[in-house]
């Protein structure tokens, strides 16, 4: 059976994660890479044993018709590159956010529909093993009715040497609504959306904790009302240590996880009987989770497993959908809903 083929446009840090995933998959061949820096393109090709490399995406598209184009460039270049790919009738797997402005996303969506092509945004954390376990608890009814979800990301973007506050070479996130926080809003938005469903109301607060930085804001909070439940979302560029916390509260259970740590859930169930005994049982269960998660995480690190849990699953599902001629793994309308939410969250940034 013929192998599926992919190409990457953009050979920076995130591209290396894609290439590492693809290098492990027998049925997929990466046949070319492209970067505006010829050396970076050639280095990626040499490192991953890829036959062809380009420094212009149009040259690549003129030579090759892959099954899927991975766009892993900075966000401001996504729109022109994705437009060229879709216009050529090629499926696109694009890093988040797909576009800097929502109107551009709409144009791409229209083009994808016209050309009958996939336009997939990388929403890898939907496929994170911990998130999938939470979803399973919701689906099975164990968690009860979902009342609230909290998605709280803390990342030290303000530290010395951080590329986010590099005053010599402004970070690509500075081109986004929401500044560099805008680079993280898609992750926050799609994780909240998974539980809330369509958003009906949004309230946000932006703040600048450190006055000396080039950023307009380094703290963000948001309250969302969705058709299924409410959500509290936040980003902190100052709170330490780093963490990506998801907490889902239901009528029977509260469950939380940290996506930056080895996959594990902390589960608190509503119990009848002696409260002290319940606390003991929960404590033992939690200790076991922490121990297993820590050992697993250490072994994963030694084993070179990507810290981007969920990326492999998402990429494989996309290729599989192409092979089986099935719908894309995340419906385009859902990607649209998330893009609209990101737009609403970012539109109230400090000015």
């Amino acid at each position: 059976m013929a192998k599926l083929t992919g190409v990457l446009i953009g050979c920076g840090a995130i591209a290396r994660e894609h290439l590492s995933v693809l290098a492990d998959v027998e049925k997929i061949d990466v046949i070319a890479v492209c970067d505006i820096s010829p050396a970076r393109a050639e280095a990626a090709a040499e490192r991953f044993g890829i036959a062809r490399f380009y420094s212009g995406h149009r040259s690549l598209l003129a030579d090759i018709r892959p099954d899927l184009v991975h766009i892993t460039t900075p966000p401001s270049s996504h729109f022109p590159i994705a437009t060229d790919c879709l216009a050529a009738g090629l499926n696109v797997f694009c890093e988040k956010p797909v576009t800097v402005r929502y109107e551009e996303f709409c144009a791409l969506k229209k083009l994808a529909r016209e050309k009958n092509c996939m336009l997939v945004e990388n929403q890898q954390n939907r496929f994170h093993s911990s998130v999938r376990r939470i979803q399973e608890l919701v689906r099975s009814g164990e968690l009860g009715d979902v009342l609230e979800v909290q998605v709280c990301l803390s990342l030290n973007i303000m530290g010395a040497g951080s590329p986010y506050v590099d005053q010599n070479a402004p970070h690509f996130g500075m081109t986004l609504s929401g500044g560099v926080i805008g680079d993280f809003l898609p992750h926050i938005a799609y994780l909240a959306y998974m539980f809330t469903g369509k958003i009906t109301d949004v309230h946000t607060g932006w703040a600048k904790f450190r006055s000396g930085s080039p950023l307009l804001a380094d703290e963000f909070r948001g309250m969302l009302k969705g058709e299924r439940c409410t959500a509290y979302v936040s980003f902190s560029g100052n709170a330490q240590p780093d963490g990506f916390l998801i907490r889902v509260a239901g009528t029977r259970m509260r469950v939380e996880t940290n996506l930056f740590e080895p996959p594990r859930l902390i589960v608190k169930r509503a119990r009848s009987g002696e409260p002290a005994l319940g606390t003991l049982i929960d404590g033992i269960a939690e200790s076991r989770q922490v121990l297993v998660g820590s050992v697993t995480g250490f072994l994963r690190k030694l084993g070179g497993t990507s810290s981007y849990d969920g990326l492999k699953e998402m990429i494989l599902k996309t290729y599989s959908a192409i092979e089986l001629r099935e719908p894309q793994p995340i419906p385009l309308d859902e990607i649209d809903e998330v893009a609209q939410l990101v737009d609403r969250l970012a539109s109230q940034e400090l000015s």
Partner: protein
Amino acid sequence: MKVLISGAGGFLGRAVVACLLERGHSVRAIVRPSSQRPPWPDTVDVIRADLRVQEDLTSAFDGIDAVLHLAAATSGSEDTQFSSTVVATERFLEAMARSTVRRLLHVSSLVVYDWSKAESCMDEETPLENNPYTMGGYAIAKVWQERVVSRFAKEHSWDLTIARPGFIWGHDHADIAGMGRKFGRVYLLFGPLTRLPLSHVANCADCLVAAVENPAASGETFNIIDGDDIRVWRYAREYARRTGQRGFFLPVPYRVGLGVAQLAALTSRTLFGSKGKLPSLLTPRRFESQFKPIRFSNRRVRQVLNWKPRKSFDECLELSFPHVQYDGALRSFES
């Protein structure tokens, strides 16, 4: 001679500018926009630019006789180092290609060699590293930077000199990788009698300027080291004494350290296949590149440029630790 120098605000760059001025050359210095202007005289023409993003650098080459390319990152993620070192070099040399300047001296590093193939002595004939991707971000970036420079020079028929310094050290930059690793109060010295390829920043700058001045350097590649007579034990002892650091030296024979790294690598391969990841100390090839007990030759630079280090090791120590008095620290292993 009017010299354009990239990375002029860095540790080596500042020493090179001082040396150029001392020898009567005029200097155009590229420094990053956000960094402070070093205490240079007004005669130094300062251009504020970040080579990664500067739109057009062509005018920086106007009226220039020779270019000294020092810009590179020495820390940061693999991607950050590649951008700051390799992509920045591509942009810088694209601008040079639009100018009439033909003389280029590029500062590379000994990390571009394949240390596993260095037998008893490392010199300019030692094979280059062809698979740098397991060697860490700095090695990847420096290998690729040299490839880019060599290709540009060949394509545009430039007069290229490649200089590969060893461990560049000096004031506030004396903690070199070859010295070992500190864990709490214990300093592990891997191969205490191993020779260090040291290049004091003042001597290194002097050699680079000598190479710019001397037409015989065109087309040559030099390793720049002061000599290889200083061994790990002595350097570490001087470092600890002069910085007043407290702790214990624990000498570990090189073969023992390498054996542990090889055992760790074998275990990793057995358990995880080729994707296993280990810290640099437990990666045999990276361990070798920091601690391999070989000799280091500077014969070629001595022959072609008739150069020798201006300052002895003892003079360099005085320059590098000018105000620190021995306060009795480390007495535990001095006695």
